[in-house]
């Protein structure tokens, strides 16, 4: 039995909270995994306390979509008036989970919804026993951290084996759907063929059958290796989807969707985030919410109202333009974000920030695996700025994608690059930073907004004081 009230436990919590305080208030940093790390040093079993305090637990893992799916699920469950604990900020290793707990520490939660890094999954489920596990997809991520998606796949597969849990699986990713061989209770979700589906194959994804290694045949691709597939050798194919998005329409901002379930023939749904990858995230959260018995109407309503402020996907309203920041961190994500830009007809400029710090991946070669060629389909794009430690590499990638070098501008300084992109006479500025650049860019934008609102209030005051003749 874990003592949730031992002296050692309280010391751990206190130390963790002190670390968090110092980090936030003194160093003005992002509260992240560090406080949890401190607490775990003193009380290694603290994750088991988290386990006990949450009545039911949902873990979200896979390469892409963990943070969005977790935030959306948290939002839906919370909207129903339930108590829910989550690591909302993307710190998804054991220490990060503990940090989220240190910040709140209620005696009891109805739900714990946690995103878990693929590499940490095995460690986390030793302590945290999930009622549901959502597996989103397997793509290649920051390369020098894992190298191979087969390893991530195998790690999660092995960790799931002994668990008594329900799997919520993406039916459209052959690797994920092959988890049905684990013979757990499986719920499949996915996105049917829609107007954005294509028959064009990307080059880099693995499209071989997970059960017999023959080449998979595709009827359509939604993105990467996600789509409608079958193996002509062994019959491996998409399992029937219990929850399915059947129609996808662009409606600035975001998508208008239709979905069906075993019980519901067709329902409408709005989700304010672009990109087919977000349609998948939305579908994952929707599936879990309905599966755990939430009322359909209320779930649809809270999905429609969902927004989050993390810098991963965030929109800022400036007086003369919209500024949209979208984190890009791996090839599939970058390609898909550029594709979603092509749906936006507004006059726009673009700032791409490429860093090669450890958290970004020190190997920036991944930008060459991304379908950057999608940039050529983006209309009304006035200028592209490239910044960050490896600004030239980004510009070079764009050049070889076929973008005219005359439209490309390199500026190492994020501050002056941002200044330039904000001064462009456009309706919308898109900013696509890698991981370590997101926080910096966000700070710079917010500082700019404060600056401009100060200017506006100054202007308003001045106008008030103008005395008109007569």
């Amino acid at each position, binding site marked *: 039995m874990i003592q949730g009230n031992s002296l050692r436990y309280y010391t751990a919590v206190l130390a963790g909270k002190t670390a968090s305080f110092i980090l936030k208030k003194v160093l003005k940093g992002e509260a992240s995994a560090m406080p949890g790390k401190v607490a775990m040093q003193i009380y290694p079993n603290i994750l088991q306390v988290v386990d006990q305090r949450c009545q039911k637990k949902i873990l979200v893992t896979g390469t892409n979509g963990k943070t969005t799916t977790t935030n959306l699920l948290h939002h839906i469950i919370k909207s129903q008036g339930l108590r829910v604990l989550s690591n909302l900020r993307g710190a998804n290793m054991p220490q990060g989970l503990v940090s989220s707990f240190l910040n709140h520490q209620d005696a009891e939660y109805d739900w714990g919804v946690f995103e878990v890094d693929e590499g940490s999954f095995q460690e986390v489920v030793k302590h945290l026993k999930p009622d549901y596990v959502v597996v989103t997809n397997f793509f290649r991520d920051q390369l*020098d951290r894992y190298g191979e998606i087969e390893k991530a796949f195998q790690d999660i597969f092995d960790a799931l084996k002994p668990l008594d849990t329900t799997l919520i699986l993406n039916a459209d990713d052959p690797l994920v759907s092959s988890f049905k061989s684990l013979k757990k209770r499986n719920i499949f979700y996915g996105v049917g063929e829609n107007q954005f589906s294509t028959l064009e194959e990307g080059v*880099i994804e693995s499209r071989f059958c997970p059960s017999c290694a023959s080449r998979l045949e595709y009827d359509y691709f939604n993105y990467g290796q996600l789509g409608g597939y079958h193996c002509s050798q062994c019959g491996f194919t998409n399992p029937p989807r219990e929850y399915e998005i059947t129609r996808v329409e662009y409606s600035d901002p975001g998508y208008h969707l239709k979905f069906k379930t075993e019980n519901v023939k067709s329902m409408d749904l709005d989700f304010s985030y672009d990109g087919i990858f977000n349609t998948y995230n939305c579908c994952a959260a929707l599936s879990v919410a309905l599966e755990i018995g939430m009322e359909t109407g209320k779930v649809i309503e809270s999905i429609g109202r969902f927004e989050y402020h993390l810098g991963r996907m965030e929109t800022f309203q400036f007086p003369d333009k919209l500024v949209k920041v979208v984190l890009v961190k791996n090839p599939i994500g970058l390609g898909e974000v550029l594709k979603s830009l092509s749906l936006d007809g507004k006059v726009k400029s673009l700032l791409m920030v490429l860093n090669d710090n450890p958290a970004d991946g020190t*190997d*920036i*070669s991944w930008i*060459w695996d991304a379908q950057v060629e999608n940039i050529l389909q983006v209309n009304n794009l006035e200028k592209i700025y490239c910044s960050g430690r490896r600004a030239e590499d980004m*510009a*070079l*990638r764009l050049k070889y994608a076929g973008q005219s070098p005359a439209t490309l501008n390199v500026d190492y300084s994020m501050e002056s690059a941002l200044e330039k992109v904000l001064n462009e006479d456009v309706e919308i500025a898109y900013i696509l930073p890698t991981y370590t650049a997101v926080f910096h860019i966000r700070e710079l934008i917010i500082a700019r907004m404060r600056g401009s609102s100060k200017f506006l209030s100054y202007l308003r005051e001045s106008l008030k004081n103008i005395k008109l003749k007569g």
Partner: protein
Amino acid sequence: MELKIYHMYPDLLNLYGDLGNITCLCQRCEWRGIKAHIIPFSKDREVPLEEGDIFFMGGGSDWGQNIVFSHLLGYQRIMEELIEDEAVFLSICGGYQFLGATYIDAAGNKVRGLEIFDYETVSEGGRLIGNIITKNVLGLEPETLVGFENHGGRTYHDQKPLGRVMVGYGNNGKDQKEGMVYKNCIGTYLHGPLLPKNPHMADHLILKALNRKYGLSKLQLLDDRLEYAAHHRVLELYSPTK
């Protein structure tokens, strides 16, 4: 003029942005009005190799490399003939290791290579990862080649290397050698990808192929300011003097 560029196993050997080498070769041909045909070759997608001008083979995951290897053994002779006949080969990482005689894995098992060259690669535990800068021995200007390496295997040979290591590990982290050159066949551990930031290397391969096919001895110059800016940025960030 036209070149046939064979992309070997694009769906299995596709790690670390190596695809960028194909993009680079293709664009630098097209910008000069040379037609570049990219021909994918893979398991269940076999096409005759004889007509190829440039062959590119990258590295993959263990899973991918195992599939490739058992398949590629059936093409050992034709590959050897092409290399002897001065066809242009660029083999990176796993592709480079394949061309050798043996690969000794972490458990000490000997895996036979294509045996086109007699070198050996040994998995010695711990991966060699990081930015790499070498000085090429082909006489290309500028002298430096920049890239990123990420390999567990150490390759040992007495072949002519592609470069001398200035920063990073190279073939094995011991003898300062990086890569291998035999006729127009180049093996290397440089990802990055190699060619876009080393346009002199890219043009070297294109010119060798055009020379073999059309007797051409000079290439039209391109505006490579951006390419060399990226090249110099790596030197600036990762040179030992900094």
